[in-house]
């Protein structure tokens, strides 16, 4: 009788103890979750406060004005960033997705192991090194800076990101699906493309977006390649302006109105990344369902 009573009390005590522990842990996790998003919230808040007031239609349609003159915008840098990201994507996405598919399909092959390792090394490469590399091979021989060199430098940075993400996404496609397609008489390549890659596509798109967002804000590789341009230029063989370069340029200047413009440019850059994300998500969603080939 007593023993039973004791056991019950012990259980009760341990239940209370467990409840308390659960409460503490829950609170800690809640706190960690808040802290994880805090930098983003602060950043957005600050950007909006500092930058929003400088954003108007002219910001998107005009070129910069000299110091002291009011107005002016960053149309050239916005377009420049779009062009650079476009070139980078045209290089980084097909190469990265192809390489990732190869790594996932030929898991154990010796070449795959080397490619995987080198891709990780490339991923860890400081972006400034990538810039020097691109300058050495793409700028120096030609004799002048160019948008193409900048786009290629960014594209090279994208490749390992897209490669490893694609590999991960393709790997989680169940083997059973691959086998089902093969058993239906799908050739190997068709199985890879229209079943495996297609099933992994939403994940790959997300990864591609993350990669684009990453490189859209890169400044270091552009310093020696795209260089920046105070004037309107859309030619890929000429120096071109870019938002990160413009932010860098304006932020280090001693002028208050240029500082404000730098904040505004930062806000626009983030907005641009957001729009790219939403657009690509929309595109993949509307494709969903009716793709059989």
């Amino acid at each position, binding site marked *: 009788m007593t023993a039973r009573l004791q056991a019950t009390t012990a259980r009760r005590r341990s239940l209370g103890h467990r409840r308390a522990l659960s409460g503490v842990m829950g609170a800690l996790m809640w706190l960690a979750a808040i802290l994880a998003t805090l930098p983003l919230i602060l950043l957005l808040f600050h950007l909006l406060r500092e930058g929003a007031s400088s954003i108007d239609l002219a910001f998107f349609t005009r070129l910069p004005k000299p110091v002291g003159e009011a107005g002016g915008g960053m149309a050239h840098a916005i377009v420049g960033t779009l062009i650079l990201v476009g070139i980078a994507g045209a290089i980084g996405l097909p190469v990265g997705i192809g390489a990732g598919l190869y790594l996932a399909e030929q898991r154990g092959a010796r070449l795959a192991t080397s490619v995987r390792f080198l891709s990780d090394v490339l991923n860890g490469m400081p972006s400034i090194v990538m810039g020097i590399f691109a300058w050495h091979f793409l700028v120096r021989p030609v004799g002048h800076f160019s948008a193409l060199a900048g786009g290629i430098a960014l594209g090279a940075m994208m490749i390992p990101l897209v490669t490893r993400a694609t590999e991960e996404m393709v790997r989680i496609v169940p083997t*059973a*699906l691959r086998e*089902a397609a093969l*058993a*239906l*008489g*799908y050739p190997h390549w068709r199985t890879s493309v229209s079943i495996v890659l297609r099933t992994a596509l939403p994940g790959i798109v997300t990864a591609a977006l993350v990669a684009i967002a990453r490189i859209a804000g890169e400044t270091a590789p552009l310093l020696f390649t795209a260089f920046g341009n105070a004037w309107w230029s859309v030619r890929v063989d000429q120096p071109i302006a870019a938002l990160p370069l413009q932010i860098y340029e304006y932020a280090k200047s001693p002028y208050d109105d240029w500082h404000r413009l730098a904040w505004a440019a930062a806000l626009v850059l983030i907005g641009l990344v957001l729009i790219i994300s939403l657009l690509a998500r929309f595109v993949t969603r509307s494709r969903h*369902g009716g793709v059989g080939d």
Partner: protein
Amino acid sequence: MKNDSRAATAARARISVRNLDARFGANRAVRDVSIDFPDGQVTAIIGPSGCGKSTLLRCLNRMHETVPTARVSGEVLLDGRDLYARGVNPIEVRRHIGMVFQRPTPFPTMSIRDNVAAGLRASSRDRPSRRREGEIVEESLRTAGLWDEVHERLKDSATALSGGQQQRLCIARAMATRPSVILLDEPTASLDPLSTQKVEELVHQLRGSVTVIIVTHNMQQAARVSDRTAFMLLGELVETAPTPEMFTTPSDPRTEAYITGRFG
């Protein structure tokens, strides 16, 4: 003389397996198996886990070789033609021999209709017109007993279906290319009793028009659905007999031990 007798067997059998060995690296999963699968009949392959029954099945449509380190030797004759002969394209083989797996494998990115039509679209050659494709989809879904349940939502994702429906969808998908043989690898292992019953009824309906080979863990299922049963143990084929005979008067003591539940 020997060739003549083989031709005679091949005439009655849709698929004849001769001295088949299948390996995974050094592991010999199927050992010197010879067996005939009669045309239009249902043959069940039973045996304990790891006895090589699934591997044998996967050799019949050349799926075994898709696994790295897998090797096959021996002959598999489909209507007298060796599927492992030089110059035979495994992709062609798989188009003539349908397969359904243990777990339902609908393609998650495709609609119900596209799933059924997937096999028809496997090659860009001899692809049916869109209208003809629609007819085949309906026929296949009717055969699989799924038409009434899904005809109003053919454009929905196949993953929205229940497990049993998904499995019948996979059977419809395998049937859409009108294979002469269909291989079922424990098709009801992941299904509830009611769905299992529906799949078994479907196997009954297929008898006569298609040669069905079903691997199953479940001896009652083998007894219910098959005309002939083959018993495998440790990679070897112990015996093959008409199903009633197999379950009442097996000739091999090992078969008797297995079906009376003494091991496995």
